[in-house]
């Protein structure tokens, strides 16, 4: 395989993707905490931010070689987010 400065290019790409995932996860952690709780409908914003962390984790799982887990979570996570938003809309927001 082609080497860049004595390091395999695949290793460099994997490391870069893991670092990008780390940055996205840190940003999601900051974003999920920074909004006040008394803001109206803040939960939709938090679900949206959680999507970033989900995709970052799926990328990390793909790089780590767990393709089946990544695919399973990629399929399940939209249902998950929709279920929470739907339950909040019909359950708690209307009270």
């Amino acid at each position, binding site marked *: 395989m082609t080497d860049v400065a004595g*390091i395999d290019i695949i*290793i*460099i790409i*994997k*490391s*870069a993707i*893991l*670092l990008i*995932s*780390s*940055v996205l*996860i*840190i940003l*999601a*952690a*900051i974003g*999920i*905490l920074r909004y006040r*709780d008394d803001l109206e409908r803040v*939960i939709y914003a*938090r*679900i949206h931010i*959680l999507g970033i*962390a*989900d995709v970052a*984790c799926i990328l*990390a*799982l793909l790089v*780590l*070689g*767990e393709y089946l*887990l990544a695919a*399973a*979570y990629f399929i*399940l*996570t939209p*249902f*998950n*987010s929709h*279920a*929470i938003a*739907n*339950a*909040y809309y*019909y*359950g*708690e927001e*209307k*009270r």
Partner: protein
Amino acid sequence: MDILSLSEYILMGALAIFALATIRITTRKTIAMSLVGISGLSIAVATLLILVKDIYNVGFCTDIATALIVLGPVGTIAFSKVLKAEGQAEENEKEELAEGSDQEVTDKGDVND
């Protein structure tokens, strides 16, 4: 230490911070907020376990991660259904009460006539 191990350790740190953030969200007062927190925590812990398996060669971590990834969303969806049904039942109850009070008002009007 090679570059891949270094980035794995950095990801581990990021996931630990994210897990703490989601635990904080889980302790907020509404149920939906707890669901968001738990959902984030489950994927963070699952990815952390896969990293542990990759770095320290602990075989059973994959099984726990699989269980977390499959059962986490399933539990969240099931709880969301309960929350939605509860909210809708409460709303129906309110509507019935409102209809009942309207009927009482019309009945009283009839008596006065």
